[in-house]
C-alpha cells in the first residue's frame, strides 16, 4: 500500500485489490459468490449483491461495503483479522473519490506476445500423433510444439492464450488439432488449430477453471470435454456453441471418448464413474463400470466398442461400452472385459495400439507397461522416465510409442521390444536464471 495524503488519489487496482485478495476473494469470487457478491474484479464488484449494490460511487455513507467492514466488531471478513483502520479509510476515500476503475486492460490477460523462452523443460501433460502419421503435437507452456512426426523436427509453435495445455487431439483427417487448455482456477479454453497453416481458427474460453479430455466426434463436427465444474460439454467445432451439457457427475471430469457411431459418449470422472451419455440429448444412459476408484485416463479400443480406463489407485481395466442393465447381486460388474495387474501408482495415461492388440498404461509409477489386450499378459515394460508419465501416443503404424511426463522429455519406444530409440527435449533451454533466494 502506498503512503497517501488525505486527498491523494486512491487506486482500485494498486491499493484496494490487494486488500480484497487477502480478506475477501476467498468467498466472494465467481465460483462461490457468497451473498452474490464478487470482489475479485471491478466488473464483478459492480454487480449488486443479494442485499443491493456493494458501493455507491462518491457516497461512503450509502456503501454497504463500508458498513460491513468497519466498526468495533465488523461483520466482514467472516474469518481472519478485521481490516485495519487505515485500510478502511483507504477504501472509504476510494469510494469518496468516485470509486473509479483503473484496472489495466491487460490485467487479467494471460496472453503472451511471443513464445516463451525456457530455462526448465515444461512438464509434458499431453501428446498426440495425427492419424496420417505426419504430425506429433506436444504440450508446452502457453503453446503446443508441432513436430514432423517421422523426423521429429519442430515445425511450428502454436502459441495460445492459456498457460496450461491439458489435452490434445487431431481430427480423423489430421487437418485440425483441438487443444484443451486452461489457466487453472481462472478459466478453461478450447482452441482449434489448422495444422498445416499453424493458425488458430477458433478459441473459446469457458467457465472459471480447467477443461479436460477434449475429443473429436468421429465426423469432426463436434468436440466433447469435461471440466472442473463436474460437467461434460459438447460444442460445435465451427462456432463453439454449446450443443449439450451433462451434469450428472459429482466430481471433476477428466476424460471423454466417443463411440464409433458418434451418437454416444463416455466420460470418466474423479467420482469413479465412466458414464455412457447420449451425445445429442445429454441423457444419461448408464455407468458402464463398477465404481471402484477415480477415473484418470480413458481410451477407446480402435475396433471393438470397448474402453480402457486407468484409475487413481493403480487399476487398469477394459470395459464394454454399453448399458450395465444385466447386473445382478452376484455380478454387478457385467461389462468388465479384463482387469490387468495393478499399476505402481495412479494411471494417468492409457492408449491402445492402432490395431487394438496392445494396451499401454503409464502414470505416477514412472514406467509404461504394455499389455496384450487379448489375454492381459504384459508384453513390455518401458522404463527410464525420471518421474511420472502423463501422456502416451502410438504412431499409426503401431511401431512407435511416444511418452512424456514430469521430466519434460519426449521418449520414443519400440512397444514390442521395449527399447527406447529417441530421448529429446521438445525445446532448447536457455541458461538458467539465478534462482531467487530469501
Amino acid at each position: 500500500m502506498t503512503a497517501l495524503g488525505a486527498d491523494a488519489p486512491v487506486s482500485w487496482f494498486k491499493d484496494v485489490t490487494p486488500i480484497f485478495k487477502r480478506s475477501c476473494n476467498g468467498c466472494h469470487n465467481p465460483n462461490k459468490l457468497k451473498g452474490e457478491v464478487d470482489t475479485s474484479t471491478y466488473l464483478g464488484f459492480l454487480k449488486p449483491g443479494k442485499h443491493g449494490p456493494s458501493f455507491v460511487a462518491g457516497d461512503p455513507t450509502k456503501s454497504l461495503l463500508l458498513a460491513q467492514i468497519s466498526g468495533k466488531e465488523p461483520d466482514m471478513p467472516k474469518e481472519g483479522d478485521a481490516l485495519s483502520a487505515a485500510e478502511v479509510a483507504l477504501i472509504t476515500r476510494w469510494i469518496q473519490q468516485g470509486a473509479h476503475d483503473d484496472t489495466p486492460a491487460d490485467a487479467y490477460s494471460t496472453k503472451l506476445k511471443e513464445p516463451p523462452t525456457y530455462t526448465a523443460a515444461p512438464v509434458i501433460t499431453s501428446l498426440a500423433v495425427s492419424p496420417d502419421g505426419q504430425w506429433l503435437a506436444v504440450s508446452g507452456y502457453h503453446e503446443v510444439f508441432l513436430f514432423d512426426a517421422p523426423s521429429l523436427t519442430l515445425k511450428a509453435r502454436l502459441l495460445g492464450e492459456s498457460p496450461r495445455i491439458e489435452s490434445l487431439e487431431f481430427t480423423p483427417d489430421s487437418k485440425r488439432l483441438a487443444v484443451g487448455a486452461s489457466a487453472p482456477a481462472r478459466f478453461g479454453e478450447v482452441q482449434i488449430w489448422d495444422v498445416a497453416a499453424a493458425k488458430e481458427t477458433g478459441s473459446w474460453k469457458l467457465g472459471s477453471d480447467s477443461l479436460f479430455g477434449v475429443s473429436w466426434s468421429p465426423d469432426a463436427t463436434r468436440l466433447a470435454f469435461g471440466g472442473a465444474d463436474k460437467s461434460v460439454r459438447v460444442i460445435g467445432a465451427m462456432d463453439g456453441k454449446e450443443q449439450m451439457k451433462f451434469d450428472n457427475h459429482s466430481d471433476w471430469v477428466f476424460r471423454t471418448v466417443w463411440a464409433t457411431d458418434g451418437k454416444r459418449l463416455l466420460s470418466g470422472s474423479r467420482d469413479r464413474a465412466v458414464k455412457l451419455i447420449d451425445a445429442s440429448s445429454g441423457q444419461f444412459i448408464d455407468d458402464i463400470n463398477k465404481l471402484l476408484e477415480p477415473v484418470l485416463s480413458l481410451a477407446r479400443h480402435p475396433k471393438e466398442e470397448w474402453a480402457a480406463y486407468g484409475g487413481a489407485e493403480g487399476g487398469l481395466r477394459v470395459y464394454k461400452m454399453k448399458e450395465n442393465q444385466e447386473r445382478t447381486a452376484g455380478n454387478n460388474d457385467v461389462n468388465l472385459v479384463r482387469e490387468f495387474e495393478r499399476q505402481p501408482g495412479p494411471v494417468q495415461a492409457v492408449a491402445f495400439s492402432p490395431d487394438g492388440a496392445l494396451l499401454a498404461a503409464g502414470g505416477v509409477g514412472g514406467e509404461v507397461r504394455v499389455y496384450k489386450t487379448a489375454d492381459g499378459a504384459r508384453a513390455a515394460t518401458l522404463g527410464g522416465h525420471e518421474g511420472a508419465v502423463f501422456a502416451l501416443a502410438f504412431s499409426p503404424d503401431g511401431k512407435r510409442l511416444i511418452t512424456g511426463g514430469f521430466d519434460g522429455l519426449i521418449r520414443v519406444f519400440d512397444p514390442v521390444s521395449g527399447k527406447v530409440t529417441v530421448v529429446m527435449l521438445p525445446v532448447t533451454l536457455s541458461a538458467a536464471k539465478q534462482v531467487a533466494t530469501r
Partner: protein
Amino acid sequence: MRIARPFRPAGLALLVALSLPLVAADKASDKVIPPKPPLPAIKALRLEPAMLALDDLRDARKVLVLGERTDGGVIDLTAEAHLTPDTAGVTVDAEGYVAAKAVGASTVSVSAAGRSAKLPVKVAGVSDQPVGFVREIQPILARTGCNQGTCHGSAKGKNGFKLSLRGYDPEYDYQALINDLSGRRFNRVNVDDSLMLQKPLGEVPHEGRQAIKPGSRYHTLLRQWIAEGARFEDVAKARATNITILPASVEIDLPGRQQQFLVLASYPDGSTRDVTREAILSSNNEEVALVKGSSLTALRRGEMAVLVRYEGIYAAREVVVMGDRTGYQFAAMPENNFVDKHVNAKLQRMKINPSGLCTDAEFVRRVYLDLTGQPPTSEKVRAFLADSTATKTKRDALIDELIGSPAYAEYWANKFADLLQCNSENLGKKGVWVFRTWIQEQFAKNRPYDQFARDLILAKGSTFENPAGNYLRALRDPGKMTEDVSQTFLGVRFNCNKCHDHPFERWTQNQYYEFGAFFAQVAFKRGTLGRDTLIRGNETYASEQVSEDIVYQNYNGGEVKHPKNDKVMAPHVPYGQSREIAAGEDRRAAFAEWMTSPGNPYFAKSTVNRFWSYFFGRGIIDPVDDIRAGNPPSNPALLDALTEDFVKSGHDVRHLLRTLCQSRAYQLSIERNRWNEDDTMNFSHAIPRRLSAEQMLDAVSIATGHRSQFKDLPAGLRAVEVPDGMVGGNDFLTLFGRPKRQSACECERSSNVTLSHALSLINGPTLGDCVGSADSRFAKLVATEKDDRKVVEEVYLSCLNRPPTEKEITGIKLGEGDKRLEGAQDLAWALLNSPAFLFNR
C-alpha cells in the same frame, strides 16, 4: 404415595449443588488477561542457548533472554530484549532471529532490564542450500494449516486437492503437489504461475483465503523449492527425529507474565534447526495460561503444559504458575507409606498444604464403597466407631478385612466386566455369565494382573470351557483387538492411527496394522454346546446368540493388510522389542510376553494409574486411558514409585490396593484449607465422587433393607452382580451411567449429575419403592423401636453411615402413631437425596 409428597427443599440440595460449578466455569471462561506485573529487580541476564552455531544461509536462530532475579527465580525478558550484532558477520531481524552472513566467529550484544550480555555466534557456512521438501516445505504446509483436518488434510481433501493429515505422509503430499492432475499445481517454466503459489497467496480465488503473505519467508521458500526443480528428499534422512523445547523448566511467578518458547528439531545427521516458527504450540489448560504463536501468557495460578507438535513429533513442557503465596509455610502430612512421601514433595513444590485426616465415619464409608462397591451396614459403622484401637491400626485392619472379601471380588469383577466388554450382544446370554464368573474368580484368588492379562490375550478353545476366550471373542477382529487391548492394558489410544498417523501422538498408521498382525490369525468358529432354537414370528432358526464359540489359531492364513497398498503387515510392537516368533507359533504368545514384561513402560504404569483413579477420583495421568506426551502425569515420581512397587510385588492387585488405601493421602478429608482450596490435581484433599449407578443402587438396598429385582435375574442379586451390560428393565442403572460395555473407554461409564438424576431420586420409582416397601428396614424399626431418638440414629447410620448430631436428633420430629413410619420414611428419603449420600466423600 411418594409422588403426592409435597415439595421439599432437602430434595433440591443436589440441584443447588449442581448449579454452583456451572457459574464458576462461566466466570473462568472469560479469559481476561491480567495486567503485566512490574518487573522485579534483575541481577544478570542468562541466554538460552548460551551460544549459537549457524550452518548455512537459512539456519536462522533465536535465543531466550532470561533475567535472573535478585530474589531468586528467573523471568523471561525475550520480548523486551534488544539484540545488536557486534560484527558484520551476522544479522538480527525484527523478530530477533540471528542469521549468518560471513563465516567466522561473531558476537551479538543483548540488553534487557538494564542488564546486558554477549551472545557468541559461530558461523560455519553461508551457502544457500537447496530447499528440502520434507525438511522445509512440509512444515510450512502444517504451520499455515494447509494440511489440517478442516482443510486439505480432511479425508476427502478440499476442492479436489488432498494432503495427508498434518503431513504424516510426505510422499503422498509430494505426489499431490507435483503429479496429481499431470502437474497442475506447479510450474517450473514460470514459477510464479504455479497454482500452489497462486492459491495460498490469494492471486486466484482460494476458499482458505490468503494463507501465505506475498513476499513472506514462506512464499520465498516455496518459490525457491519449485524453481530448484521441486525435488523430493530421502524421507528417512530429512525428517526430524526429535524436538527440544526451551526453556528446560518453567516456573512463572505471577499471572500476567509471558514466557517465550523455542523449539529445536534434530535430524538423523546430528544437525539441528530452530523450528519455533513452524512448530505448533498449544495450551492444555487455557484456564491457567494461553499460548499464541510461541509465547505463553499466564492467567492464573495453576499447572499446565505447553504442547508442541512438529512434523509427527510430540512433546510437552510443564509450566507452573505459582501466583502470590505470601505467608505460605509447608505443613507436611504424616507419611503412612511411600505414597505420602511423593504427594508431600509435590505439595511442597506447589506451595500447597494438605487437608486433615477424614473422620472414622467418613473413612469407613469411603473404604467400603471403594473396595466393595457398597457402604457398610449400620452395625458395621457402629462397631467401627466404637472400636477404641488406635486410628491407623483399626483402619489398616478394616482395609485388610475388606480386601479379598466376597463383596470385593463381586465389585471388581463388575468393574473389569466393563473394560472387557462383557455384554450379551457380543457373548450371548450364557457367555456373559461364564465370563463374569471367571473374572470374579480371578479377583477372588488374586490372580497376578500380568497373568490375568495373558490369560485373556492367549485364550484358546471353547468360550464356555475357557471363559477367558470371551474377551477376544467380544472384540472379534484384529482392528478392534488392536484398539481395545492397547487402551485397556497399555492406557494408550490406538484408534486415530487406523486411518492416518495419530494426530496427537507419535503412533503411526503402520504401527496400527503391525499391532493388528499379532491378532490376524485369531479365528472363531461355532461350537456345538448350547445351540438353541428360537422362534420369532413364523420362523424357527438356530440362535447364534447363545451358543459357544471356539477360539483357535488359524495357521493357514489370516493376515492384516495395509489399506493404502494392500501390503501384508508383519507383526511388530509399536515400541521396544518383542521376541522372535517361531515357525507355526501362535503370534499372540510373543505379543503377550512383550505386553506384560516388567520392561514395558506402559503396562504396569497404566494399571496402577487406573486403579489410583478409582480411589482418588482422578488419575495421576488423566484420563487414565489416554497416556501420551500431551497428557503428562501430575506427579511423575509418585507414578514411577507405584509402578515399581507393583512390578516388584509380582503385579499383586491386593498389595497395590492396600498401599493406596493405607496411605494418608487416601484418608484425607474433603474439607479444604486456604492453601489447597484451588488444588484439583495434587491429591491434597479428597475429591467427592458421585456414587456409580451400581454403588448407588446397592447403597439404597443397604440403607432400606430392600433389594431391587432385575429382569430375568435371580432375586437378591447385588447391582454389581448383574452380568450383562445390555441388562434391560432397569432404567435406574442406565440413567446413572452404567455402561453397555461396548467400548474399552473408561468414559463409557458416566458419572455426571444432571437434572434427570435429581428428578429420578426425588420422584422416581426405584428410591420410592425401596423406602416405602413393606419389608423395609424402617417398617421393622418403627414397629420394634419405640424411642424416636434411636430411630433417627438408625436411619442416619443406615443412609449416611454416620450418627446424627445432637442438633439433627432434636430437630427431627417423626410424628405420632401412624405418622411415625411415614416420618421415618420421609427422613430416609430426604437423606438419600442429600449430597452426603450421593457422593463418596
